[in-house]
């Protein structure tokens, strides 16, 4: 099968989709090749992401990757999120076809950007 059952589940039932009011960090990443976009919002308490929300514009795997990553990252430290790798996001979906690897890349990139944004705000919400 082209897509894993986990990916299909996240695509059909995206978790944590939508905007966040007054987030403690916002980050975005776009894949220039295809215009896919991911935007993440973090609520941070005691240096940990206690709430993660997202918006995406893109194909099914990008939506699924964002949803899976939103669950993957909740509870983790901001410093940890600054190091988030695309491979870990892909792992949360079991696998991605070769031509959809960019879905995990932009999701990881957006989450790293959101974590960095939080740090640049002087760790408000710590």
């Amino acid at each position, binding site marked *: 099968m082209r897509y894993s059952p986990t990916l299909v589940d996240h*695509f059909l039932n995206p978790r944590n989709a*939508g905007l966040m009011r007054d987030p403690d960090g916002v980050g975005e990443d776009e894949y220039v090749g*295809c215009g*896919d976009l991911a935007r993440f919002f973090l609520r941070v308490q005691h240096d940990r992401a206690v709430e993660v929300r997202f918006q995406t514009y893109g*194909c099914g795997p990008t939506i699924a990757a964002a949803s899976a990553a939103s669950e993957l990252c909740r509870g983790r430290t901001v410093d940890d999120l600054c190091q988030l790798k695309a491979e870990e996001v892909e792992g949360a979906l079991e696998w991605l076809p070769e031509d959809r690897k960019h879905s995990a890349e932009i999701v990881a990139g957006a989450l790293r950007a959101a974590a960095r944004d939080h740090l640049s705000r002087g760790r408000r919400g710590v």
Partner: protein
Amino acid sequence: MNRVYLDHNASTPVHPEVLAEMLPYFAEVFGNPSSIHAFGREARDGLDRARERVARFLRVSPQEIVFTSGGTESDNFAVKGLAYARGTGHLITSKVEHHAVLRTCQALEAQGFDVTYVGVDAYGMVDPDDVRRAIRSDTIAISLMHANSEVGTLQPITAIGQVAREHGVPLHVDAVQTFGKIPLDVDALGIDALSFSSHKIYGPKGVAGLYVRKGTRMVAIQHGGEHERRRRAGTENVAGVVGLGKAVDVRARDMHAEAEGLTALRSRLIDGVVGPVPDVRLSGHPVERLPGTASFLFRHVESESIVLGLDLKGIGVSAGSACTAGNVEPSHVLVAMGVPLDWAMGAVRCSLGRTTTAEDIDYVIECVEPLVRKLRQVMPVGAA
């Protein structure tokens, strides 16, 4: 789970009558039609009968039909064959052609030919006057599609044929999407060469044809044996050609009644999608369009996510923009029509066929609205 196939412009299932007629040509009638013994003659008979069927359908002479391996080969053959026959000069085509014509024209440009790509209006229709204005003293061919596969718009071929005739320029028409679906009269339309395909009309894949009007200056682009009156070298796909011949016969019998039913189902689909779903519109011409094609533009939703969502409901449709290896561009057809990017990226084509039912259409309508609503909830603009 329901399974609904609405991608008939991509391909169609082989009609049972077609399959039955093809089957003996795999193991029983297996000779090479170029062989002079009985085994070969039997295969040749099958080939000849198919050629006669196609010729009768188009009301042309069997000698004017050349069998090929697919619509792409037919288009290559026509465009290059017309160009190479002159060796130099200017061709006219449009910006909304299938890549089989567009990229062939680009290849010819690289070889020194000049090409004019005429534009289209917001419905994807070529203005015959634009073709007239593009004609030069060194114009050697015009190549235009009869109907656009993506948006379904029918081109005003009669008027364009008149322009071509007035100027003595041969006209090639890519009729892959119309052959066997709507009436085609090559004389009335002023067509000198016409590409058609088998698998769009319930025949097998890997076989197609090109009508070439007698006297048209065209050279072969594939060389080898003496097949197809020295116009297309290579042993013919006999079983495939037999299937194409039968498919054409079935279309001649069923085409008119089916077109009526398809038009009604298409309207049912359009009414069920445009209206209940916000920010969606039909692309292509509202009236001058293929009977079974309805293409939609969903604003602010990425088309592949709609295709995947419907696929998971058992529905097969096609995306107007395809993301391949991380590269996606809106369809060149929609760009030529001037469709803004936020609409063009959400293009989805539904193409109905002979087995499509009202229940199928109602199921698709039932699935589309909640899917698009859900997708818009995660997409930035929709959620903002």
